[in-house]
């Protein structure tokens, strides 16, 4: 009994210590056979992603973001180095069981309906029967696509595809989510919705690794990032530490006239002998757009109903 409790304690302790992802000395070369040379996709990458954090893979096109994700999934094999997912080698069954993946520009079987697609992927994850049925129902609610469950995938908009992509990634309740450009090609409201979902998942204890070009969105939600360029690691750490400049402060003043603001500016300059810049606040286009169209977007996903002739099921 004591032995059993101890081994359980060991497992719990080990689980807490083992990071979600551990990459050591990872290198990936693609051989260009005809030119008799190799292309370096990743070079000596070392990084660790802790449990429960949102981690950003950043970099321009061709920097190695998608390659890193494919290596984590076992779709590519490393030339050198190793990747451990919760202590298991990437690509193994145990590693795959703990990962949910949303590919860039998700392409799903077009001939299936949303529900059929989730059932197919659910069965691949070992779910079946009532449990699978319940899970599909809950996920359609979570990603707000209940109304489109019986529609063929080919009729889905880009935003809907991303959302059903998230649903299929979450089917087997994985501990780690790999999201490759989850907001690519999605309108600002759709991408805000995906962002909110990511925050919600983090609150549920999920670890999320995602890549994105939309840096403003990354900044909002990410805990730590790695910035890659041509397969090399440029920066790695907490985003806050990277972006905070302790030599430069911003002070916000509300409800003052321009004359009063000038007074404050002069006063600060006289008293503190430092340079002070004053300019009206400027809203980002994204937040302006979202505020302007800040209504329930789900109405826009629903098919238009024609006046007059309407078929009732």
């Amino acid at each position, binding site marked *: 009994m004591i032995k059993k409790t101890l081994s359980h304690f060991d497992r719990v302790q080990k689980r807490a210590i083992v990071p979600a992802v551990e990459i050591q000395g990872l290198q990936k070369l693609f051989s260009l056979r005809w030119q008799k040379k190799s292309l370096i996709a990743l070079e000596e990458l070392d990084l660790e992603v802790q449990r429960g954090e949102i981690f950003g893979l950043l970099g321009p096109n061709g920097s190695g973001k998608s390659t890193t994700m*494919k290596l984590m*999934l*076992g*779709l*590519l*094999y490393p030339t050198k180095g190793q990747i451990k997912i919760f202590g298991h080698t990437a690509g193994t*069954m145990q590693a*795959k*069981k703990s*990962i949910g*993946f949303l*590919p860039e*520009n*998700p*392409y*799903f*079987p*077009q*001939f*299936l309906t949303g529900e*059929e697609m989730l059932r*197919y*992927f659910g*069965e*691949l*994850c*070992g779910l*079946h029967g009532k449990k699978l049925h319940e899970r599909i129902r809950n996920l359609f609610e979570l990603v707000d696509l209940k109304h489109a469950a019986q529609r063929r995938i080919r009729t889905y908009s880009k935003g809907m595809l991303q959302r059903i*992509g998230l649903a*299929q990634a979450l089917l*087997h309740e994985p501990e780690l989510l*790999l999201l490759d450009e989850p907001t690519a090609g999605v309108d600002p409201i759709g991408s805000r919705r995906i962002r909110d979902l990511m925050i919600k998942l983090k609150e549920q204890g999920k670890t999320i690794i995602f890549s994105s070009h939309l840096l403003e969105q990354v900044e909002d939600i990410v805990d730590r990032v790695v910035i890659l360029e041509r397969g090399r690691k440029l920066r790695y750490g907490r985003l806050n530490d990277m972006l905070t400049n302790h030599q430069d402060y911003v002070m916000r003043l509300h409800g003052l006239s321009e004359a009063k603001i000038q007074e404050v500016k002069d006063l600060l300059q006289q008293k503190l002998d430092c340079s002070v810049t004053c300019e009206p606040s400027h809203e980002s286009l994204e937040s302006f757009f979202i505020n302007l169209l800040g209504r329930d977007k789900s109405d826009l996903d629903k098919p238009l109903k024609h006046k007059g002739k309407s078929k009732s099921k």
Partner: protein
Amino acid sequence: MINGMIESIIRIRAIAVNTLTEALRQKVMLVVVLCGLVFIAGSLFMADLAFREQFKFLKDLGYAGISITGMVVALIGAAQLIPAEIERRTLYTTLAKPVWRFEFILGKYIGLIALLSIIVIMLSTFFSVILLIQEMRVITIETPLNWLQWLLGSSDHLNDGIKSHIEEIQNASRDPRLIQAVLLVWAKLCVIGGLAVLLSTIASSTSFIVSITLMVYLVGNLLHIVRLEWGEHSVESTFLKITFITLVGWLVPDFELYNLIDEIIAGKNVSWSMTLEMLQYSALYVTVLLALAAAIFEGREF
């Protein structure tokens, strides 16, 4: 261990069902099958021949129809199995799930075989109906029976000569050995499908896969001629030629063996043990082809 096997079977079944659903919802498959049905039905409008020749001609065309339609379906289906998944990137999502790569290959192949089985059963049933229609036509022309009497099987009032003639016509039409022929067509299609699956793990171009599969099929059909020319018992045989023909013989299935179908159609006796041997030969080839496909697919990067 047993749980793992059950989970594996569930995953393979899911991939197979998905492959079958995709194929059944493709318009091109429907068009191919319709062409097959038209081809088989067209055999009814043939030249005026004696009834034995008529039935032989009908069977020749019918089995050619089933074989060609099945082959087109096998080639289109198999050649699209993996390259299309890579091109559409649906493969990424599937392989990212807890699925072994060999399960993917096996599931895809079983889905294809399920599709071929449906098509072979459908065309064979249709062909049987065509044979019965022809039987009715011949009987109503050559004997005093009308179609209703033929349908009800009421020939008691006829004399023995006419009765034996009707029996002869029915024997030519309702040949139980045709089940053996259907099985052999199906087995041949299974091998062609396996070959196309193997090639689709190596190449990504559909036209390349189709043309190489057809080439191997052709070589497999001509193998016995080359064996006669270059084999051990030939005057022109050399060590090199014998080694070459042995190697090719191991690599390429001998499709000439499936020509037992022609003998069945010609009315010759082909034993069930021979048919079963052919099924075993096909199963062995398919196993080797799929094992190779799985090994190659395991090493591929996406």
